């Protein structure tokens, strides 16, 4: 019941955002791409919901990329689509629990992480995401963009045949950016959500 209500609300606000975009951000061709336009608090609440959608989209791509049962073409497509969600220069921090319990962390550019995810040394990889744990309030940066952070919880399982070789649960923090982007086709500006750096804040052996 709760999810039905969420979907209805999302559908309503998606429509109203389009209206907002067409009525309020149509500017002349000589305007700079980033204008000083403020989001209202109700718009920000809408974007909080859209952020959850965007993060879930990313999670779905990760599941596909990591799954060796999926055809290569589908995994490659998911890799390309996942990359489009990110801001240029974003990094992904991964973590691994060693046998002695120490946690090793490493940050890589998103493209490298996604590529590496396809070729992990397991016969099977299962990645599971739980419901988004938290999305912070959006705050405006000096560049006019709006910033937030989403917390997600990921369960990673690596198999060799039918045996689980490695399993962990990681809490991750994803940087979220709302940017005013020029849509050249419609000659107008629209707010768009991008994902940024991802930090592995906590990892536990499962």
């Amino acid at each position: 019941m709760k999810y039905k209500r969420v979907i209805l609300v999302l559908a309503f606000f998606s429509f109203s955002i389009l209206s907002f975009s067409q009525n309020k951000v149509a500017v002349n061709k000589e305007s700079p791409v980033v204008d000083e336009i403020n989001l209202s608090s109700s718009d920000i609440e809408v974007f909080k919901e859209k952020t959850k959608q965007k993060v879930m989209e990313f999670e779905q791509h990760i599941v596909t990329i990591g799954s060796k049962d999926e055809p290569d073409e589908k995994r490659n497509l998911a890799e390309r689509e996942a990359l489009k969600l990110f801001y240029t220069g974003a990094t992904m921090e991964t973590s691994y629990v060693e046998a002695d319990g120490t946690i090793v962390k490493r940050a890589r550019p998103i493209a490298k992480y996604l590529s590496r995810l396809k070729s992990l040394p397991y016969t099977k990889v299962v990645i599971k995401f739980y419901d988004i744990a938290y999305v912070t309030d959006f705050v405006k940066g000096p560049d006019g963009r709006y910033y937030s952070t989403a917390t997600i919880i990921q369960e990673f399982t690596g198999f060799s045949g039918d045996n689980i070789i490695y399993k962990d649960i990681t809490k991750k923090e994803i940087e979220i950016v709302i940017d005013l982007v020029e849509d050249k086709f419609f000659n107008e500006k629209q707010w768009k959500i991008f994902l940024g750096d991802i930090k592995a804040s906590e990892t536990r052996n499962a």
Partner: protein
Amino acid sequence: MMKRLFIISIIFLISNPAFNQITDSKVLNLFASVKQLNELINRFNYVSDNLGNKLDDEFKTVISRENYILSLFNFENELLNDSSYQNTINKFIAEVCDTLNPLFLKRFSEGILAELECPVIIENREKLITLYLLPEIGENGSYKWIIKDIKTDLYQHLEKRNDTLVFINPLNNETGFISLQRIFTEKTIPVSNYTTDDFTIDKLSLFFNDIYTNRIKFTTVKNCTYYIFDIDGWVLEVEEFIRDKKNSGWLINNLQKKDITVTQFLDQLE
């Protein structure tokens, strides 16, 4: 008080239907933890739950704001066994939850100081430095963090020494200040001894230069402690506790009755 805190934590968890579907206790604990500073602030302000959902009347009937704030403290701090510290917490909560004049933390405030413990590599050795960052609110309501100060002994050798009397002699000008050659090559006496009485080295600028010239390599942020000054007369110290328990994440680890500004607090760290 500890029993009360434990009961609070269980009550508020089981009241959230989202937890009904999760069977893994590790995952449950991650959901229950205070995942971000923003979450701690919203919980403190009695605005949202651990999933970011707005608190409804049903929740407020089960858990009062007093108990909700209490659940944001680090239960494993031994200070909680001290009755005078317990009284301090009770006094603080009573003041903050006063029905006539309730007090709140600002969601984006300049009254927060972030103290970061960071390992750096210098001459192939790892050393710890402490950076202090402050938020800054712009005229258009924008928000950003700025690097305010550094605490390190990396530049101790440049600090003024009070145990020695050195100076540029009063008629050194007549010899074209020739002694500067010796002053700038001698390593035993800091050059700062030849400056004004109130001269202090700017460690932050020195650190930036060392980073820029690759003499120092920054690795990561190892620990972060927040000091919150939003409630007049009080300082909240918030740290992250990574443990497989519901009472985990960003928690208030120390509460001090102290009338001090962020600037005064920074000055006293020197």
